[in-house]
């Protein structure tokens, strides 16, 4: 697998204007800011889910040179609140990931569970696994531990950071908790008004 960096050039969406950002392979850039400051919208813009200005490249490949669904398969956004449309968990996965389930403290049978019985914490972990089962080349994480208790939060943080470093994915991680930002490491930007500032 070739490692590629994620590059935002002059991205403008909502209140954010002209955002430039480079994320190296295996690097995690944390993003924080008050609610409503546009963190989620920035991630949505990178995933090309809403109209905006600016360019995004993965490696040397411009987003516009491929179809939008190909782009999203490579640069995958995991939203804060996941949605499930089929009856069982397994139907949402690109491929089975049995060993990852146990690492996230979920039993192997979880793939056969009906979606209706999932707790919010289980949904959040399964949504991460679901996204990674599609083998993206870059990750956009929107508060990936919002519904988890402390212990599970630590476990999930370790697991995602390991995955990101092992597979060399550039990642943007939206987080609230200062402790988490410190543990995850890497650069940290916060949104001030219309731009990103190193924090």
């Amino acid at each position, binding site marked *: 697998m070739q490692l590629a960096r994620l590059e935002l050039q002059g991205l403008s969406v909502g209140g954010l204007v002209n955002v430039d950002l480079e994320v190296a392979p295996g690097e995690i850039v944390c993003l924080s800011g008050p609610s409503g400051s546009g963190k989620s919208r920035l991630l949505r813009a990178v*995933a*090309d*889910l*809403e*109209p905006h200005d600016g360019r995004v490249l993965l490696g040397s490949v411009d987003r516009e040179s491929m*179809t*939008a*669904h*190909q782009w*999203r*398969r*490579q640069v*995958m*956004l*995991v*939203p804060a*609140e*996941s*949605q499930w*449309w089929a009856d069982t968990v397994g139907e*949402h996965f*690109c491929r089975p990931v049995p060993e990852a389930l146990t690492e996230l403290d979920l039993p192997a049978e979880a793939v056969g569970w009906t979606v209706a019985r999932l707790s919010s914490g289980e949904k959040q972990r399964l949504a991460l696994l*679901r*996204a990674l089962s*599609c083998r993206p080349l870059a990750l956009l994480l929107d508060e990936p531990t919002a519904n988890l208790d402390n212990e599970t939060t630590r476990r999930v943080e370790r697991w995602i950071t390991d995955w990101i470093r092992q597979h060399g994915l550039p990642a943007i991680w939206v987080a609230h908790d200062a402790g988490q930002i410190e543990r995850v490491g890497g650069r940290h930007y916060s949104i001030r008004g219309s731009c990103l500032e190193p924090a």
Partner: protein
Amino acid sequence: MDIIELSWWQLAVAGALVLLLAVCTHLARLDIGRPLLIAAARTMVQLALIGLVLEALFTVGSLPWIALMALVMLLVAGREVMARQKYRLTGGWAFGIGTVSMFVSAFSVTVLTLAAIIGPEPWYTPQYAIPLLGMLLGNTMTGVALSLDRLTESAWRQRAVIENRLMLGQDWKQAIGDLRREAMRSGMMPMINAMAAAGIVSLPGMMTGQILAGTPPALAVKYQILIMFTITVGTGFGTVLAVSAGSRRLFDGRERLRIDRLKAH
């Protein structure tokens, strides 16, 4: 057999019953009295007018006038399709998609049925063309309206699901596939049910009318089967077109769900 004459006072008796129903629902606070009375008044005025128009049209019988009549019917149906949607595509698309779908499907099936199957001389003889087009357009309108309403409303409610599917790399057709199937189903179900129940549970209106007017039942049945099939084909293709165009319009060139193209009414 001569058909029994109906006088206006006899209709007034039936009208009084509708009025009674409106009063009862009003007293029971079921809030349907007003729309019921408006619709009843509309049906009376519209049918009385169309009676006059048809008499004039049948005397003239020329193609331009028949085409004008057909155009008016189409535009009214297009407006009706739009009015029945709670969430409408903006920028004239709600009207445009409904009207074009009905035009392409109902008009071509009508012309085909007239020219290739029934074959009156000339093919546009208004006694055949206008009732046939009316039945096709009416049913196609129902199918298109139901399916578009279902499509836009479920897209509105399930926009988070659609977007999450897009995030996982599905293309727009996969992401909205379930909704398209449901919309298609709700557009076609009335016709499928009508065909399944025809003759057992319900006696279709046109057949009943022909029998009342003295046509032998065997011939009336043949006409009814023909009409059921053509209506189904018209409704089906109209609904396919509307669902395809409507769902395409919910996404832009970069396969983003553009829920901002819907407006609640």
